Every structure is written in C-alpha cells, then in structure tokens.
C-alpha cells in the first residue's frame, strides 16, 4: 500500500443531547491511501456518518487526531476547516442536497467558483453524462440524474478525497450501478481515494477495504484483495 494520504488516531465524538452523553464514535484509528476505495458498512446509528463528517472536516472529533498531508485537521480553526473542505474534499450525499433554485450547471459552477484550479463545470457535467441537462433545475431531473449532478459538483473541484454518504440510498438499482461506476471511474481518473458509506453489502465487493462499524466502534477493517468490477455486482 502506498503512503497514507490521511491518518486517524483514536478519533472519538461525543454528543450531549437532552443531558445524556451519546458516544457516536469511539477511538477509531485508520489510514486512507490515495486511489483507495473504502466501503463503510454498519447498521443505522453505528457512527458511519459521524466518521465521514469528521474525515470531511464537517465535524470535529471530541478527542483523537486526524492528519491530512502531514497537517492536523482536528486542530484546524474554522477558517482552515473551510479551506480544507473547499480544496481537499468532494462530498456526495444520499439526498443529493443540490440547490433547488440553481440549474444543474449552476450547481456545479457554484462549487467551481470557490475552488482554485477547478475543472470547467460543463466538462464535469459531461463526465457524468449530463452535458445536455445543464439548464435543468433539480426538480426537473430524476433521482439518478440529480446524484450525477452531485458527483459532478464534487469532481469539478478536483478534490483529494471523495466522501460519499449513502450515495445510492435513494436510487433504484440501475441508477445505483451507474453512480457507483461513476464514482470508481472518477477515483481512477483523479487518483483520489473514495470513501463510501452504504448499507448495501454488495457494493462492498467493489471496495479495496471495508470498515465494519457497530455502536460507534470501528470493529474491523477487512481487506478485499480482489475487488469486483461494478459490472459484476449483483444488484
């Protein structure tokens, strides 16, 4: 395995809701290497999204350390976290989270506008096969198309890290296959790692490593020595 792009040591996250502390993540340690595909599996409430949010600079760990490119992300100021999200991370959500009042192209252009060295928005849209749908608003697109716009919005930034929170959770099988294929194509094209949260164990067969989570614990990291091509997955 090549040198780690990202290193996590004993990451924990505790929330206090209604006066009761909730341990959403407990002492998770791992590394992520470039161009790696990591699948995070686990039941609801197991801490998958918390882990992804901390990796993506969307949340900060209560304890522990997260290093990216030799810098301690967990010690970043709000401004540094913003720059980290802007320049290093491409996020893809289960419900797409596109801006409904902007067209597909404008949604992509919005991300490009704040990033130095971004790809051209029409090119990003073309990469996900939606070059002709740029002028459509999200409400005029199908779920699969919206998720592809969301992927275009992530790749347009040329991110160092792809983070996907149940990207196929709201899609049918055909669109799910398309989205996973696109994600892996982008990983290959950009050479960046992809972290995918999913409930679908079939998708795990396409990953290089699988993180198994339960009750906030990263119980096991299994290595998939022979990832299956997306075309061979059984949906």
């Amino acid at each position, binding site marked *: 395995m090549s040198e780690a792009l990202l290193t996590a040591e004993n990451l924990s996250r505790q929330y206090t809701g209604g006066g009761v502390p909730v341990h959403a993540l407990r002492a998770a340690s791992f590394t992520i290497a470039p161009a790696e595909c990591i699948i995070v599996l686990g039941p609801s409430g197991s801490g998958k999204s918390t882990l992804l949010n901390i990796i993506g600079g*969307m949340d900060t760990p209560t304890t522990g350390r997260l290093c990216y490119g030799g810098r301690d992300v967990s010690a970043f100021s709000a401004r540094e976290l913003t*720059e980290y999200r802007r320049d290093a991370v491409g996020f893809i959500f289960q419900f797409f989270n*596109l801006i409904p009042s902007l067209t597909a192209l404008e949604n992509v252009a919005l991300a490009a506008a704040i990033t130095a060295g971004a790809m051209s928005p029409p090119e990003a849209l073309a990469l996900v096969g939606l070059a002709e749908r740029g002028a459509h608003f999200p409400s005029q697109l199908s779920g699969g198309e919206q998720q592809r716009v969301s992927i275009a919005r992530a790749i347009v930034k040329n991110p160092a890290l792809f983070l996907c929170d149940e990207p196929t959770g709201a899609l049918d099988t055909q669109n799910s296959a398309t989205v996973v294929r696109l994600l892996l194509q982008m990983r290959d094209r950009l050479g960046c790692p992809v972290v995918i949260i999913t409930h679908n164990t079939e998708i795990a067969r396409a990953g290089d490593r699988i993180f198994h989570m339960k009750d906030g614990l990263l119980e096991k990291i299994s290595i998939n020595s022979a990832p299956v091509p997306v075309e061979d997955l059984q949906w």
Partner: protein
Amino acid sequence: MVKLLGLKMLRDMGRSKAVYIICALVVTIGFSGYSLMSIAYERLMDTRDAFFSATDFSTAFADVEQAPLAVAGRLAAVPGVSVAEGRLTDTARVQALRWHEQSGGKREELLAGEAELLLISTRPEGMNRPYLNAGSLPRAGRLETVLGAGFAAAHGLRPGDAVSLIIGGQATELEVCGIGVSPENIYLVKDLADMLPDLSSYDGAFLHYDTLAALLGREGAANSFAFTLWPGAGIDDVKAAVEDILRPYVCYRVYDRADHVSTAMLQAELDQLQSMAGVIPVLFLLVAAVILYITLFRLVEQQRVQIGALLSLGFSHRAISLHFACFGAATGLLGGVAGGASGILCAVPIWEYYLTFYSMPALGAGFGAAYPYLFYSALAGALFCGAIGWLAARGVARLQPAEALQPAAPPAGKLTPLERLPWTRELLTIPGLVGLRGVFRNGRRSLFSLVGIACAYMMIASLVSMNSMVDIFIYDELTEVEQQDFTVYFNAPVAWADARAAVSHPEVRRAELVLDVGVTCKSPVASLEGTLKGLEVGGELLRLADAAGRPLALAEGGAIITAHMAAALELGPGDWLEVESPGPAGQTMRLPVAGVTGQYMNSTVYVPLRLAAEFQRTNGACNSLLVAGTEQARRDVADRLADAARFTLAEGRLAKIDKMNAAMGSMLFILYYMAFAGVAIGFAVIFTGSLVCFEEMKREMATMITLGLNSRDCLEVISSGQWLLTFGGVILGLPLTWAATEAMVRTMSGDMYTIPNYLSGEALVRATVLTLVAVVLSNAVIHRRLRRITPVDIMRERN
C-alpha cells in the same frame, strides 16, 4: 460565486415575492416619508432664505405708538444695529373692488365688512419690500398699492384694477400697481385664534411711505421700526438700548425676526418637518424589520440542509451569513430606492403646497440637491435590512456543516402555560391546541410577530387618532368654544352702548362685548406674548371649558388661561400670573389662575370685561362683539356700518368653518391616506406571520387532512395562534400607542401652540377593529391556500 449565489437569491425571493414586496413597500413608505420631508424641509429653508434675502427682510422690529422718522438714525447708531428704518402700518377695511375693463377671470364682489387689509408702508430701496409677482412697486405720492398675492388671487385682481379702502376714516381708492408678497405676510392672521390664514379676507397691502403717511395724516412719523443687526449680534444685545431710545414714543415691543408671527409659524412648520423626517422612517423600518426577520428566519430554517451543503462545498460561515444578509439588503435597497425616488417626486408638489399655504414665491436653488436622498435612502435601506438578514441567518449559518445537514431537533414537547388554565383545553379543538403550542414552541418568531402586530396596532391607532387631534386642535375652537353666529370687529375701542347700538337688529338675539388687549404674560419661569380677553361675566357666546369638557366660569379677580399658555408658562390653577401691558402706562397686574381651558393654539387670558377695561384704562369700551343672530342680520349690520370709521369686519362663524374645511381638505386626505397605510402595514405583518406559520405547519395540516379533517378545521392550527398573538399584540400596542402619540405631539408642539395627547378611546376601538379585520382577511387568504394543499405531495417533501 457572487453571481451564482445572487441568482439563487433572486430565484428564492421570486418564490415568496409577495412577502418581499410587502416588506419593500413598508421600507418604501418609511424612506418616502424621510426623503419627502427632508427635501421639503431643505427646499423650504432654501426658499425662505432666498425670499428673505430678495426682500431685504429685516432681522428685528420695534412697535411704537408714534415716533419721528428721524429716530431711525439714532437706532442705526446703536452698537449691534447696522441699518434702521421707520415705517407706518395700519389696518383698513375694504369697501369695494373695481376691476379694469380688460381684466378677465374671476370677479368676486365683496360685501361690507368682509375683508380687511394690513397696510404697510414701503420704499423702493428700503427693507421689507414686497416681492413682486406682477407689476411694479408703488410710487411716491401716487394712490397706488401692491396687493398681497393671496387677496388678489382670491378676488381676481390684477395690476390696473383698484380697491376702495377706508383709511383713517376716509374712503380712498387705490390703483393696484403690483401683486406681491412680503416675508411679513406669509402667514398673516388677524388674531392667532384664527389659526389658519384666510387671505381672501385679510392680507397685506403695500403703499409708498409718503402716500400712506399722507392718507393717515402722519407725515414724518413712524409707528414701526425695522432694523438689521450686525452679523452675530442678537436681539438681546440691542434691546435695552433700542427700548431706551423709543421709550418716549411708547414702545410696545422690540422683537426678533424669529418672534414675528409669520416667520415663527414657518419655523414651527420647518421644525416639525425636520423632526418627522427622523421619526417616520424609524417607525416603518421597525415594522419592516419584523416582517423581514420573520420571513428570513423561516427561510434560513427551510434552507438548513442547503446551508449544510454549501458549507460542505467549502463556503465559509461568513459567506453564507452574507448571502442571507443580501436577501434583506436587496429588499431594503429596493424599498430605499423606491422610497427615495417617490420622496423626491412627491417633494415637489408638497413644496408647492407649502409655497401656496405660506404665500411664498418659488425662489432658491432647484431640486438638484435632492438626489443624494435617493442614495441615502438606498444605502440606509440596504444596510438596515441587510443587518436584519444577517441576524436572521446567524443561528443556522453558524452551525457545523454536519449539524446543518440534519433537521433541527424538535423542541421538547411540554404543556404551554396557557394549557395550565382549566378552561383552555376545553375551549380549543385539537388543531387549535396544535396552533397554540406552535406559538410557544417557536418562541422567537412568535415574539417578533407579537411585536410586529403591536407596532402595526400602534401605527393604526396613532394615525387614526390624528383625526381626533384635528378635531381638538382646530375645530373645537370654532364648534365647541365659539357659539356666536358672527363677530363684529372695530379697529379702535368703542363705547359699550355704541357697540350694542351698532348691532341692534330684530334678528339679533344676543350680543356680548369683548375687549382684546395685547399683553405680555409672565410666570416665574417664562414669559409669553398673548391676549388679555375681557368677556362679559355670565356670557354664553364663548363657552370656556377645561380639557375634560367641564365648564369654566369667569370670576372677578381671577383669570382663565388657555392650555397652551399654561404649558408654556408652567402654570396651573392656583398659581399666579403676571400680566403686563405694553401700552402707554405700561401697567401690570397679578392674577390667580382660576382654570385652564382645553385650547391649545391661543395664548389668551380670559378675564371679566370690567377688569380688562380697567387694566387698559378704557373704561366702558370694547373692540369687538360676539353676536347671535341670523345671516341677514349680519349683512344688514355690515351694510349699516359700511361708512363707520371704526368698523372693520362682520365675520360669520359658519363661513369661517367652511373656509377651514377647504383649507384642511388636503391635510385630511393625507391623514386618511396615512391611516390607510397603517392598516395595510398591519395586514402585512399579520399576513406574513400567518404565511410563515402555514409553511411551518404544512406537514401537520396535511396529516390532519389525511385523517379526514377539513380545511376549515385545519385553519384553526394557524388562526388560533394568530388570534392569540393578535390579542397579545393589541394589549402590548396600547402603551406603545400612548408613547407614540406622546412622542408625536411633543415633536409637533412649538412656541406658537401646544398639541395635546389626543389619543381617544374611539381611536383605540377603531384600531382594534381594523386589526381584527386584518386577521380575518389574512385567515381567508390562508384558507384559500389550505384548500389547495395536496397532502401526498407535502408529506413526500423532505424537511
């Protein structure tokens, strides 16, 4: 980035355009008032200064019984006085008008005793020359006059026409050589009790000094001196020296330009404009802030997930706060620009209205200097509303991205304080209970709605009650205090018996003698120029009453003073008032204040007729008569007295009310317009609150519809909360209304008059009814929306 977020903003605003338009309109009204009044103020100041300069308006005056003209030279030598000039003034009854054959237009004959002119001597190079609208200045030795523009316009007189006046007891025909106006007759009233000038019956007429002196038989004499002070010098610097010089000639009064009735009334108007320009935008911006905050707070909550997505893309919290601030800024900018522009447009007719009202020529710089107000309004609107947007977005925009991506945690479910009352739950249906809990669960929005409704109620109530102010301030004098049918005026004291004989007529039911004496009234804290009015004890034609309407009876040895005088001198019943006559003997008397009338315009001291006559040492004389009789009696009396030297006017009270109605027409229109604006704003606040509540509770209502409740049942979810907030808003609005009216009357009161806090129960009831109507209308609109709900679509929407 800016362009795309700007696009997003415009599209988001387009979806709720009604609310943003309402908000922009409220801002528009506020800034329209601000710029209109500020521009009118500046323009009027500019016109006044140019007018004063063009006519060499003197900076001070002195009134004397009679002095040689040469005394002006001695006055000019007083340190602090640069130029002094003697002149003559007198009043003359208009006997007839004669139009030149070629004169066209309106020709209105005058009946005897219907008009009077204030004669003022002038010289071509002297001070206080009339500003000519037409014709030329009067020449020495010629029977010529420059007529006041108001009188000339009212009777269709032009240069070349003639007026016949009774001057010094003799009928004299003067040719109209010009039409003009002087700073001294821009607000010309016979008596301050007249309140509004009526230039058709009383205006200025300017004659060459030599002509007027010859007609009055006072060649080489002056009864008034005008002088200009050194730059930086004030009246107090020269007053003592001037009084010393004029004392041998019976000096009545030395006063500054600022104390001249015309300039004082104009200054009071200017001060009001300036104060209102500061108050009005604050009131309206407060309401706009409430509407905007409620709207944007809800928008930000609705876009919580979008905010999370933007944060995850790498947008900073600051950029997102700024984005939502732009919603406010755009609304404020739109309102500010529209308000500034409409203010500039409306300032022109308002300025023209003031010019007509004050009979001033259109002098001074143009409206070019008004355009910065467009910029000020736009900037202030954008900054203020932008700040509201920033505040509204602050909470959500500061969230961690991961937190923003999750729906907000629902507030803890608990009973509301109202539900602890035993009857509440029995009174309310389940949807009503949901609405009630919604009010308490969304505490901040409810608080803003409450404040908004209270502000709207305050605006409606205080604007509606301005009509009561007009009634108390203007009309009560003519309808409640004065009871005579007409008043006969004399230009010099007339023996009581002669006066009664003058109005003897079968259709005269009652006549009461009046003696008016100009006096200076003093208290330990202040002094005030006023009128000592002697009335017959037991008289019925001038009904004195206190502010609560309780009758006040004249008593020997006591004085009844007007509310304005009481306020200005800080006197009340039981205090002592000192009255000083500027007359030949300069006598003084001290009187206990027996009562205070509900009159806010006049500075009058009412005493028994005999006491006034003794004070003036004109025993057995009066200078006017209040008469109860028919209109025919008035005409007959005026005809009979047409040639009498001391008779000036026989003025009907109803005709005076008619003239007042005509003069007040435009003001009443403005009042009704403002009251309408208040109602519209009240509706805007209530409707915005309902609309936001509708958006918030849509899912709950969709669920209820699915369960089988009809749209009217579901409406209770919104209406119950709205009624509760409206009830609270009205309660909170009561003290706010009192405070607002108090602030307004303090702002509007001046040296010339006091305005009472005119808030009436009737106005409060009307405002309450209008507020409730706004709730009913708002509920009707929401009900229409509710009927269009498709439950399945709404329940499918993600939070």
